[in-house]
């Protein structure tokens, strides 16, 4: 393989892996701490992308801001959405069987999908890349690489670093880690677990929405985009070990590389490879790469 082509594929794999990490990190936190198998997590990704599409022009007109302001608005709205959702739909479900929560999140997928259809319609929409990011960087003699994709990777890396800082260095992060390894004990130590749940859920929704919003100019927005990302993110979470941010990062990169290079080398079996990888890893380590507890 030509080294430049190889480099481009590597960049693509990293960018894809980092995006997966953003979505999967929220999923792994929500599962690790709240014990909720959140099937609706893909919908939050979809909501983020559609918000970037629908709010972009509005932000430009009313607030006079560009793409970055749109991202901030999307994240703020997503935090609000997550906070309210946890409060209205999940706060009374913790004492029930886990499968009841699965049913609830499944219903939310249907509701969000239809609300999207009612509000925005069923067409595929492109989201323009902001002008100051629309250039390309020459690689070698023939290839170029779009600046925007580099920015996506950059934003993801920043968010990942911030997340690691919060989780490992702050008091909130400490409670979150403690909650992931032993929920009852944290409660017994006097932590307001209800509030912790709400924060974690809101953060998870915000991360997924942010991922959707920055991915929108690359992938465009289309119906069902959330479901596609959902299953692959579950794969990431499980390979990484539930509740482990570090594991999610490693697994996301692994999946990113396997999918990207799988599509190049074995187009026939590209879809299959990720699942073979997951099955192999789980048979080797039945609790994922990094089990937090």
């Amino acid at each position, binding site marked *: 393989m030509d080294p430049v082509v190889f480099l481009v594929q590597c960049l693509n794999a990293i960018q894809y892996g980092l995006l997966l990490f953003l979505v999967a990190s929220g999923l792994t936190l929500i*599962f690790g701490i709240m014990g909720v198998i959140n099937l609706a997590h893909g919908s939050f990704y979809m909501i983020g992308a559609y918000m970037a599409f629908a709010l972009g022009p509005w932000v430009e007109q009313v607030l006079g801001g560009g793409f970055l302001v749109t991202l901030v608005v999307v994240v703020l709205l997503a935090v609000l959405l997550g906070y309210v959702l946890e409060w209205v739909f999940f706060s009374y479900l913790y004492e029930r069987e886990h499968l*009841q929560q699965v049913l*609830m999140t*499944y*219903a939310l997928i249907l*509701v969000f999908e239809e609300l999207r259809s009612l509000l925005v319609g069923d067409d595929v929409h492109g989201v323009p890349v902001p002008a100051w990011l629309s250039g390309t960087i020459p690689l070698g003699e023939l290839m170029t690489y779009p600046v925007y994709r580099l920015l996506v990777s950059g934003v993801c890396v920043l968010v990942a670093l911030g997340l690691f800082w919060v989780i490992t260095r702050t008091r909130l992060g400490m409670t979150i880690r403690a909650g992931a390894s032993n929920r009852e004990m944290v409660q017994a130590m006097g932590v307001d677990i209800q509030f912790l749940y709400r924060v974690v859920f809101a953060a998870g929704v915000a991360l997924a929405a942010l991922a959707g919003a920055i991915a929108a100019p690359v992938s465009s927005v289309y119906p069902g985009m959330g479901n596609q990302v959902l299953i692959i993110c579950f794969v990431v979470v499980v390979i990484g070990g539930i509740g482990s941010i570090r594991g999610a990062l490693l697994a996301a990169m692994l999946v990113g590389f396997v999918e990207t290079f799988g599509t190049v080398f074995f187009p026939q079996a*590209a879809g299959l490879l990720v699942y073979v990888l997951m099955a192999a890893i789980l048979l080797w380590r039945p609790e994922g790469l990094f089990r937090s507890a």
Partner: protein
Amino acid sequence: MRSSTSFSVLAGLVLLAALALFPLIGSRFGIDLVTKMMILAIFALSLELLVGQTGLVSFGHAAFLGIAAYTVALMTPESEPASIWVVLPAALLFSGGYAFFVGALSLRTRGIYFIMVTLAFAQMAYYVFHDTALGRGSDGIYLYFRPDVSIGDWRLIDLDAGNTFYWFVLASLAFVFVLLSLIVRSRFGRALAGIRVNEQRMRAAGFATYPYKLAAFVVAAMLAGLAGFLSALKDGFVNPELLSWHESGAVLIMIILGGIGSLWGALLGAFAFVLLQEFFQSDPIFGEFARHWQLTLGLSIIACVALMPQGLIGLGRQLGRRVSLRRRLRHA
């Protein structure tokens, strides 16, 4: 206990009679709908053996349905029907065989990891039919002839004639329900229940739990295979969507909706899910809004979760408790 058993038998017989007589009054559309409901009920019942009875939540159950359906489609020649004595056992055998392989490996994991490994193996099967020459891509394969049911030259039944296929599906459903009822009451079924409640204790009591779980996994897969076999016959074609995670998810939703832990719950859940879907999709009732049936379906599922913690089957129990509570309050 005994009175509830005899009530169950009575309810079962009434339902059986009602379903058996339905084609005499139902329209073509209605008969098709009920056939679909009954096939999904077999599928849901097969998963209930795993989820509700053994406590193994499988998120890849559609693979076994799909493999059986593809087996029938691939084994039926384009110009003549195959014999049911060949295709039906083959379909069940392939489903069971894959389940033996998947179960043997995935039962090493637990909880959410088990859910995800079963999903992974189902996705592998999905991509095999979707991406390789064997399954002929996303368009799937047509099945031109329903299998021939005859012994020697004597034609037992003709699955294409009138409502024969409907009754054939009904008989299959009754068979599966009775079989599972017997399994649940058997020593094997009791062992599965023990594993669900406390696997460690079962092991301490001297049960090798792994073979029990594997056996349950294979039996459930073969019953799902029966549903797949019937579904291929009903639609006349198969495509990879039969194996997709949406199918695995939908059947899980059906049994949760109906109420985990009871065969009646699985049956009720499957019927209710299909009927709700059909109801919210109907133009005469919802007019223009029928296009957005997922919204109304989603909202009604949310209402079910909020109001019925034990699923549809628990509703009676819930109401009963409320009545007795009120009576007690009045006396106090």
